[in-house]
């Protein structure tokens, strides 16, 4: 138990180390190593790993940094995430990064890529444009070209050629990573008291700042630890959290929901780490195509992906049923267009399926949780007493 607690403490330290010390030290060991920062939600880290790089998730400053310069770059009606990231860039916290990738999920992240270009941060600043066409011969070709751009960007820095063997190896490692994460979720869904949502979050978030090989060991240790009984079952309701896929809520908020009597049995907090559903083919002669096909056909449900023909409302209700949840907590960052524009439709689908739900908004540095705790507590009590 002591060892596991130490592991959790170290994950917390890594997850919120806004200078990314572990990644910086990793890079120092070999001159051909490169660090590529990426923003939420999903980025296929395999392509960077395969060319001796480390793709590091930059999930925002949260409530761990006072924002001074960042606020001078954004109006009050822009979400909080980019102001924390520009603050980190301007105070030199990201100087050891060689390049940055900005996945196409909203206009704020898109324009942040331009701000990094103007500020000349990193050797490349790449807006990673995901296709919204899922035909392999159309969107697939486009996606592959986007992957090739990043590979070329990294090659320009470290001169490491991509090989089929290396990419297959990287895919295998990340397949294992996703498998272990899913195993943790499965155990938690059955025995949610064995590992809190906060600890789960820290373990997964830490994986965005260290090599996948190291993270897989942490995940293996976690699976082992929670495969045995630990903690005490409580009279909590089971909830799904939806809408927190980009700007991350502060830990206090996740903790408040748990303390208010809710087991979080599924969420979209670290959605990028769970984006691809199932394994990607890892012994192909053309692993770039394997990665491409995985994006086109194995992507999870997300507000950033065009969903006509596969509506998100139904998918949220399916998740509730699959995990035997009692309700949904819609928890989105303020001014997050993708999450907030989806919310009415998701709520409607829940209403039609008889799934109780509540909603609130947060900033990554929200400091007052009393109202949220009361809201979640009342939600929990109402389900326990009257559902």
């Amino acid at each position, binding site marked *: 138990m002591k060892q596991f607690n130490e592991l959790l403490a170290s994950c917390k330290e890594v997850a919120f180390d806004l200078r990314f010390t572990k990644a910086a030290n990793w890079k120092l060991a070999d001159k051909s190593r490169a660090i590529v920062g990426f923003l939420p939600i999903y980025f296929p880290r395999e392509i960077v790993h395969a060319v001796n790089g480390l793709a590091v998730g930059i999930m925002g400053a949260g409530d761990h940094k006072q924002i001074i310069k960042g606020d*001078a*770059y*954004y*109006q009050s*009606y*822009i979400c909080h995430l*980019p102001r924390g990231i520009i603050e980190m860039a301007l105070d030199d916290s990201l100087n050891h990064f060689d390049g940055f990738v900005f996945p*196409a*999920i*909203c*206009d*704020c992240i*898109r*324009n*942040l*890529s*331009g*701000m990094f*270009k*103007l*500020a000349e941060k990193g050797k490349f600043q*790449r*807006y990673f*444009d995901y*296709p*919204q*066409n899922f*035909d392999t*011969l*159309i*969107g697939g*070709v*486009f996606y592959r*070209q986007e992957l090739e751009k990043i590979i070329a960007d990294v090659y320009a820095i470290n001169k490491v050629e991509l090989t089929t063997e290396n990419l297959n190896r990287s895919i295998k490692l990340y397949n294992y990573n996703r498998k272990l994460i899913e195993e943790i979720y499965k155990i938690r869904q059955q025995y949610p008291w064995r590992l809190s949502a906060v600890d789960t979050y820290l373990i997964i978030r830490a994986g965005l700042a260290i090599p996948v090989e190291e993270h897989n060991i942490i995940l293996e240790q976690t699976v082992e630890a929670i495969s045995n009984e630990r903690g005490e079952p409580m009279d909590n309701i089971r909830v799904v959290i939806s809408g927190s896929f980009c700007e991350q809520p502060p830990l206090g908020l996740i903790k408040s929901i748990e303390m208010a009597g809710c087991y979080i049995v599924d969420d979209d907090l670290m959605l990028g780490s769970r984006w691809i559903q199932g394994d990607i083919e890892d012994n192909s002669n053309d692993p770039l195509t394997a990665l491409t096909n995985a994006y086109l056909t194995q992507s999870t449900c997300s*507000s950033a992906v*065009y*969903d*006509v023909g596969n*509506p998100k409302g139904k998918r949220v209700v399916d998740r509730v049923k699959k995990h035997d949840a009692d309700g949904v907590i819609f928890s*989105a960052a*303020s*001014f*997050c*267009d*993708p999450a*907030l*524009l*989806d*919310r*009415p*439709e998701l*709520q*409607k689908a829940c209403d039609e399926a008889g799934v109780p739900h509540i909603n609130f*908004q947060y900033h990554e540095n929200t400091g007052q949780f009393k109202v949220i705790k009361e809201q979640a507590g009342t939600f929990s009590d109402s389900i326990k007493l009257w559902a």
Partner: protein
Amino acid sequence: MSKNATEAIKEKSMVIQKDMLANLFHELSKTKETGKKVVYTFVPGNLTELILSFDMLPVYPEINALQSGMRKKSGAYIRDAEKLGFSEDVCTYVKCDIGMMLNGNIGPTGEKLPAPDLLLLSYTGCFTFMKWFENLERLYPGVPVAMLHTPYQEDGNITPEQVEYMVKQLKEEVIPKMEKVSGKKFDMERLSKMMTNSAKAEDLLVKILETAKNKPSPIDAYFAGVYYIGPIFTAFRGTDEAVEYYKELYAEVTERLRLGLGPVTPEGELKEEKFRLVVEYPPNWTNFREFWKIFYDAGAVIVASSYTKVGGVYDLGFRHNPDEPLESLSKYCMGCYTNMNLPQRVNLLADYVKEYKADGFLINSIKSCNSFSAGQLMIMREIEQRMEVPVGFIESDLVDPRYFSYANIKNRLESYFQMLEQRKIIMAQDAEKV
């Protein structure tokens, strides 16, 4: 609205445009009788020629929203959408549009707009467009959606691979759905002919907007500019009517230029041009005339603006090309202002300050539009440092009247104009010394 507001002066081109719009909305109201099919789509990166080539009629939800704003109806529409669960934080165009539908979908002329037969999700430079049409798809169940994903100019250029990606989408996704909905075969020759007209109108629009390089400028390229772009950014690009409209407008503007006259405004002709400004982003629509009057009263003329480029940055040279219609549509979509990366936007605005001899650069930042607003403060700094002109910053919203504070905006603008005045005095004194 000002208490002393008088009937706005209307030139012939304005009357022509008004008639064009009235005819379109009337035609839309009669689709049940005529059997014409209706396509809902967006202004930036629109495929108007393609829609018209199938004899279908386009409807632009953003235009409906701005019209609702100007007619003081948007506030109630937005509140109705918020009652459905839409957050106060999100795009007010979306909420206004959804509110309008909930209230019977009555268009700007008071006639009911028909439901769509096709939702053409050509999303250029605005991620929210995608979310908007996902919502519309649920409000109009069963209506087919054609998705056209426009790649962003992240490297500051349009690549052959991006064009190929778009052309494939047009061929495999968009055109087959249009054929199915309209019941007509795609006619490349007809599309090509329309593009000849498009290019003619585009030439004329550029000439009109560039008259603002003269002192005094015969036009206001922002407040009046939003009317000038109307036909070409919406349902009329590619038509004979649009070409005739721009010929008439160009004749009017060149005559004003010959006579050395200032811009026509709703308050009358601007007699003295005191300040020349470049403005980033659209005006507020709910208080459009009041907003314009603040500039009129100060003698401020907007000589160039980014908003008049959201439906095409024609002054950078792009023209629809009848020799390669689909490639041309693709390049058009990717070339629109909000699909340009931030360094490109800064370069364009800096060029405007220089070429139009502007005294200052002003941003009207819009609360509900991240596509424009995110990064604007950095754009402002870049322009200030690079061009060494005074910069100003005000905030409002597109169509949410709750976010237009007249006193606050007037106060800020007056301070800004005072700063420009002082700078002019100092520069004149310095010039005398030299």
